[in-house]
């Protein structure tokens, strides 16, 4: 378990962390790449397959990278 814990460790603060931003950037890059390759917008499954991420991880990375999500939230946080 100690091994797995060390393997998983990556001590970036999660909110607006560099690696979350990098993941979000990679997702957008892959989206453009696949759009060019397929001649249409890729599905989330196709992006997930290309990046070896789960669909949900893609959704969460995009959400985390774009906080605050709305003017309303900005005003109230």
């Amino acid at each position: 378990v100690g091994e797995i814990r060390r393997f998983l460790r990556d001590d970036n603060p999660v909110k607006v962390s560099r690696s979350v931003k990098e993941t979000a950037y990679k997702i957008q890059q892959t989206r453009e790449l696949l759009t060019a390759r397929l001649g249409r917008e890729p599905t989330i499954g196709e992006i997930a397959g290309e990046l070896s991420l789960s669909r949900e991880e893609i959704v969460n990375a995009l959400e985390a990278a774009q906080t605050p999500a709305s003017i309303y939230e900005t005003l109230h946080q």
Partner: protein
Amino acid sequence: MPLNNQMKLEFLSIPANISFARATVAAFASQLEFTLSDLEEVKVAVSEAVSNSIIHGYRNAPDRFIKIYAGLTENTLELSIEDDGRGIEDIDRALQPAFTTDPERLGLGFVFMQSFMENLQVDSLPGRGTMVRMSRRVGAGAVQNSREH
């Protein structure tokens, strides 16, 4: 159409949960073959409905609950967003573009929901609460988009 998956989410009526709710619905919807743009639009619709419940339904009381029910058929996300807040007096009027009961707002929430989702249906009883139902089919965005060009 038979439902292949179902979830129910209940959370406190605080602004921090707008982003949580939209991410959760998008994560659930991502089990279907939506595009990222489809999911972005679904997220906007969820944000609008949830912030309406917080702002209008509960008038920013932070101790009430909002419920989201979501179902997936083979190709459709079905959504319902509910509060038991103040409710809407005149639903037809509330749905009109630029109608708002709050002079600081734009009155475009329902317009967004209507244009990004399908089958928008609003049920409400003054003093009892509001339920907003809508759905989104895989491929619907693409069709709409190509029609636009």
